[in-house]
């Protein structure tokens, strides 16, 4: 398949980049991490920046999710007619399905009319009209507040915040208004039909304000759901579930995967249940947990561990950050005894700390080693230092090795 060939190409380029550079030890890391010496030639410099820190791995078929037209859940269902889509196309497809099914659905945000900065809403305005897909002025707080207003009346509001880094002016509206509406009105009112979509995570050249992962800030707020997909197939199913969910949801889309991730996605709508983590690969020695782009990093780490250390890893994609699937993670840790959680957001107060804390409460006697968190540094997301900041596969592998040898 073309995707496998592309993946192999990425891996080869990764190895080539390492071989040409000088090796130097990162302070504190056990494993030498290769990076090119600053005085390298211009050619090396250009190559260095183009190498991604992960390889997108699409899921093998078949998948066990319900197509809306089918019930009950079949064991191996027919995916129906599928099309090769990348992440932004699968988002467009999900939005298309929503607008078609739900006459009250509206999409709004900055620059969504011409298709959006990442092309997630291409063609929707022409298809559904400018009263259903429209631009807003540059005011995040206004966008979310306005969205809450639409949702309270019962219409389906799908708001786009142009980058997750810009969601902070809207933080008050999300946390103080949207999350608490049902609670404070005693279920008289709710803004459940609000969904906020936002590009999320590092992208290689985003610097401080185009690369953040703010899921931890929202995890601290009961009343909303936060969902992060790892692939186009997951994105469409999860987004449709978020839109139909009767609670305000924030859907973060890993922007680096918008083009990099492509796979076969059904054209018809389908739902993937929220608050359910997925065990992508079964294993017996270590549990690896991540979400979004990082899932592909830990998948690679799992295969590296198998190859080099003979360690069998269980890889879990958390998918919904809150309310998170405690049972799946704990069951897995009871089986393996070791847990490694990885995310791009800074270490202190990142969501890995919540998972770590809950797991040690529930599975203390089953743990063979301290729970390991491999996350971003406790610094603002850096501009030029990004390749060193992100928890790439070498750092995860190193942490895994230390855990095995504990």
């Amino acid at each position, binding site marked *: 398949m073309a995707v496998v060939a592309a993946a192999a190409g990425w891996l080869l380029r990764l190895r080539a980049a390492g071989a040409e550079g000088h090796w130097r030890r990162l302070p504190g890391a056990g494993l030498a991490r290769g990076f090119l010496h600053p005085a390298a030639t211009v050619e090396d410099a250009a190559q260095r920046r183009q190498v991604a820190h992960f390889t997108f791995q699409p899921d093998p078929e078949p998948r066990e999710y319900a197509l809306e037209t089918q019930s009950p859940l079949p064991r191996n269902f027919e995916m129906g007619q599928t099309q090769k889509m990348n992440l932004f196309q699968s988002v467009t497809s999900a939005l298309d399905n929503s607008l078609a099914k739900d006459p009250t659905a509206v999409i709004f945000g900055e620059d969504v009319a011409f298709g959006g*900065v990442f092309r997630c809403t291409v063609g929707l305005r022409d298809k559904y009209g400018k009263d259903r897909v429209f631009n807003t002025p540059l005011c995040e707080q206004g966008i979310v507040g306005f969205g809450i207003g639409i949702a309270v009346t019962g219409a389906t509001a799908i708001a786009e915040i142009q980058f997750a880094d810009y969601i902070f002016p809207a933080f008050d509206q999300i946390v103080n208004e949207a999350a608490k509406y049902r609670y404070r009105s005693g279920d008289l009112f709710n803004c459940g039909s609000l969904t906020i979509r936002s590009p999320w995570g590092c992208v290689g050249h985003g610097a401080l304000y185009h690369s953040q992962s703010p899921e931890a800030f929202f995890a601290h707020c009961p009343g909303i759901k936060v969902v992060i997909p790892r692939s186009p197939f997951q994105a469409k199913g999860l987004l449709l579930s978020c839109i139909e969910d009767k609670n305000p949801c924030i859907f973060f889309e890993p922007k680096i995967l918008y083009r990099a991730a492509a796979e076969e996605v059904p054209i018809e709508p389908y739902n993937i249940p929220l608050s359910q983590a997925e065990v992508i690969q079964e294993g017996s020695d270590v549990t690896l947990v991540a979400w979004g782009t990082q899932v592909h990093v830990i998948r690679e780490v799992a295969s590296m561990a198998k190859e080099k250390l003979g360690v069998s890893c269980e890889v879990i994609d958390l998918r919904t950050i809150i309310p998170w699937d405690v049972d799946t993670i704990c069951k897995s840790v009871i089986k393996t005894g070791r847990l490694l959680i990885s995310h791009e957001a800074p270490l202190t107060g990142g969501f890995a700390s919540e998972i770590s804390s809950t797991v040690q409460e529930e599975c203390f006697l089953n743990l063979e080693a301290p729970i390991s968190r491999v996350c971003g540094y406790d610094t603002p997301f850096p*501009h030029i230092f990004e390749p060193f900041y992100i928890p790439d596969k070498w750092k995860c592998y190193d942490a895994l090795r230390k855990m095995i040898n504990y």
Partner: protein
Amino acid sequence: SVREILAELTGRKGGCAKGKGGSMHMYAKNFYGGNGIVGAQVPLGAGIALACKYNGKDEVCLTLYGDGAANQGQIFEAYNMAALWKLPCIFICENNRYGMGTSVERAAASTDYYKRGDFIPGLRVDGMDILCVREATRFAAAYCRSGKGPILMELQTYRYHGHSMSDPGVSYRTREEIQEVRSKSDPIMLLKDRMVNSNLASVEELKEIDVEVRKEIEDAAQFATADPEPPLEELGYHIYSSDPPFEVRGANQWIKFKSVS
């Protein structure tokens, strides 16, 4: 300087923010920097204006933002504070007619950005005419310095290229429009014509300046690509102001970075 700006864009040590800021974060003496979150700098400007007033050194603060940012709530909060306390702040809205992909007619209920200050007097200035901008700023600075409070200026200008690397710049406007503005109201061209027509300078002299400038930019570009990047140790620097240096946790419990400031 140009060298520092280009070096900052490529993330080198010689950049204005030592390579740590990138394209949105140029800083210099008395230049308090760009902001990734547009509109965040307007309350900042009001604050600096308060400091100017407090220090009594007859300084004013110029706060620039765009037509897109003009719809942010915090700007109106800043207007209110500046007018209430008569802060010497010149709010300048650079109206280039498009907030990335959205034209001003589709984003703002009132495109008279100079009137948006409501209780703050506003000037509308032709941003493409350099002398016009200079005179308007002179007037505005004098107004602020006389203690009458803040003033708003709208500079009507245009953007030729896209908003950023990912914006082609033509999906929301026509190429003809861009060509038209470029040929009729390009500021450098207008000033050149004016100078040549009033015999203030000859075409050759202006060509010389052109050549000089080109050389300076090329040198700066060379510097920007050749300058070394900041050393890895600086990853953790300047997070907090801390003496003695403390340790920043890294990607896992075994990586620690020193943070010096």
